[in-house]
């Protein structure tokens, strides 16, 4: 046995060397006293200039931003939380996912302990509530933007269809209800010989559901998709629109969808504030062709985010200090000015810097006013743990009607049976 030692020793040395090499590659030192805060986002939140500004105020803080795709971002975050490593110091969470995370507050730093307990009045009440755990003892996230809804429409297409073009008149077309919106859709289809009135039926359905008092969950986290009359009505109206051929059957975030904004393949799209900058970047050739009217059926919220501090992050205090600064009204206003993401801090809603803002791209639409009105009118709706997935499953059911693979009845019964696995 003695003779084997050199072999073992050599082997151990090789392995050790490999491990050391791997280890040193994985961790970076922070010897010079600077702290690098990592920020995990889905898409560009327009924080770039703010990092610089903050680093000037606090030279010891540096930032590293990681941007992933929307769905991947939340999948990764959940994985990182479960495995206890890999999450950024600061992570963005979209509203459709927030209750999934408030259900496990242990995995996040409690912001109430870090100083947020004094800030409650700063946000819209419902935005604040969404970041709280069920027992109200811990706050996992501070709100960034809210997605008060409006309706973007193409002026050129409306004109060609003989419909009013000015935003007040357009708003008046469907001021009362979604039924009126669909009626305008019928008119549009007839006038244009089958032109598409909106981009996807799932989006329209979602908007209607977001406006209802109750959505897909009740307050006990039970799915009420089958029993909630608001959902049945929204489904039926959406099916009517699909069967009339109003939907362009585009899937959000695909290249075809992006191209549709520029080419004008559809006439209207429900646009929460954050969507406006997306349209602007994806349809540079359509300047002045898009305009913004109010959404049918009253106010509602679609989208918007919180920023959370995963418990595994080592720089809780520094990260919190930055977070508090970043979500303060002054910074939210800057983000709004540069990206269109609408602030969640009502203090700004009376600030002329916000309400006076217009966007040249949208034919000088007074976005400040439009979205302020939308955001203040929002009646908060309770968001259940798998909110985003439930809506996606129903949206796929509508997709099956759109592509002709199922009748509305078949699609609905598959939605119901798919949702059984969500319980």
């Amino acid at each position: 046995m003695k003779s084997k030692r050199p072999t073992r020793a050599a082997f151990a040395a090789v392995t050790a060397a490999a491990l050391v090499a791997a280890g040193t590659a994985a961790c970076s030192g922070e010897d010079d006293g600077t702290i690098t805060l990592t920020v995990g986002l889905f898409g560009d939140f327009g924080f770039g200039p703010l990092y610089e500004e903050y680093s000037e105020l606090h030279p010891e803080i540096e930032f590293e931003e990681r941007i992933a795709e929307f769905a991947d971002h939340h999948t990764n975050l959940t994985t990182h939380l479960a495995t206890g490593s890999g999450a950024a110091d600061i992570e963005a969470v979209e509203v459709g996912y927030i209750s999934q995370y408030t259900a496990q507050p242990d995995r996040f730093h409690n912001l109430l302990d870090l100083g947020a307990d004094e800030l409650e009045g700063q946000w819209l009440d419902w935005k604040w509530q969404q970041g709280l755990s069920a027992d109200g003892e811990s706050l996992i996230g501070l709100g960034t933007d809210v997605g008060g809804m409006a309706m973007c429409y193409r002026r050129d297409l409306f004109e060609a269809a003989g419909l009013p073009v000015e935003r007040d008149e357009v708003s008046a077309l469907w001021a009362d209800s979604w039924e009126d919106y669909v009626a305008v859709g019928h008119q549009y289809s007839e006038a244009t010989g089958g032109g598409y009135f909106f981009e996807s039926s799932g989006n329209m359905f979602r908007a209607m559901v977001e406006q209802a008092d109750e959505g897909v969950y009740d307050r006990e986290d039970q799915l009420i998709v089958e029993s909630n009359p608001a959902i049945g009505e929204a489904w039926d109206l959406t099916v009517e629109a699909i069967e009339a051929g109003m939907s362009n059957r585009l899937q959000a975030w695909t290249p075809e969808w992006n191209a549709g904004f520029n080419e004008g393949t559809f006439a209207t799209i429900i646009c929460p504030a954050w969507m406006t900058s997306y349209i602007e970047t994806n349809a540079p050739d359509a300047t002045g062709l898009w305009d913004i009217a109010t959404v049918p059926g009253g106010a509602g919220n679609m989208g918007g985010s919180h920023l959370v501090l995963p418990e595994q992050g080592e720089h809780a205090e520094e990260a919190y200090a930055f977070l508090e600064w970043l979500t303060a009204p002054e910074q939210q206003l800057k983000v709004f000015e540069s990206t269109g993401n609408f602030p969640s801090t009502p203090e700004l809603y009376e600030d002329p810097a916000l309400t006076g803002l217009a966007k040249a791209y949208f034919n000088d639409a007074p976005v400040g006013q439009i979205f302020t009105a939308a955001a203040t009118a929002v009646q908060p709706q309770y968001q259940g743990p798998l909110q985003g997935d439930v809506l996606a499953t129903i949206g796929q059911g509508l997709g099956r009607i759109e592509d002709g693979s199922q009748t509305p009845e078949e699609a609905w019964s598959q939605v119901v049976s798919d949702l059984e696995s969500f319980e």
Partner: protein
Amino acid sequence: MTIAAKAAGPARPSPRERRMHRRYRLDLHASPYLYIAPFFVLFAVFGLFPLAFTAWVSTHEWSLLSDEHVFVGTGNYEALLTDPYFWNALGNTLSILALATVPQLLAALLLAHVLTLRMRAQTFWRMGMLLPNVASVVAVAVIFSQLFGRDFGLVNWILDSLGAGRIDWQAGTASSHVAIAVMVAWKWTGYNALIYLAAMQAVPREVYEAAHLDGASRIQQLFHVTVPMIRPTIVFTVIVSTIYGLQIFAEPQLFGGGGPNGVTGGASRQFQTLTLYLYEHGFNRGFQFGYASAVAWTMFAVIVLIALLNYLFIRRIRSSS
């Protein structure tokens, strides 16, 4: 030292010499194992252990979001085998596999045959074959998804200008399978062609000359001389393509777009493959790792089974020649 050694006589080596001899023998016998050890150590850590652990997890109700892991025995497998969506995914995977692999390997064989002919800039053509394989899967999938776009895709534009009408590639079962198969074939045809080419160059010239004298045409030579001679290589490519094809993930995922359709492979699950099915359960709502692990092991069994069937099928090339 030499004098002392001679004085001692050749019959009895000194202890020092014996030690050296033993070391030499040790080196001879142990070193090869040492050289290959890193692979096996890494394989044990990153291959065998996860494999065994996955089997363990698959017998539990094991969610990433909860710290409780309840033992359920074969429960996950039973649920899996009774889930129509699983069989749908299996069917899709096999369909895409057949659509991608069969034409791909036939084309590779023909291309390799052409490349053995005398031509200018031989190296250029041969390296060109490999280029698609160098491109990242994601890049390939993104670009092909755009080519197969419904409204603004190049393929539909060509079809339309030929008067054939547009196809909603994503929406249909057959059309989506074809689109995905094209992505796979584009990436791997050249690679397989080069492997065939290497094998073909090892076939002795005399065999072809004899065939030529017997009046065999080029194509006859390909199927009656080349194919039987490179049979082991064909077996290799068939098995490797099968394994790859059954695990196809990035292509259908990106083809479905960023939203929920990327996870379920379309609204009707018309192109959800087995790995997408696994991803849906393992890395989406609920993070059901137990169930996903059961999917993984079932997939493993399916792959072994199909690779075996293919092997038996391809082996008949020899018996028929």
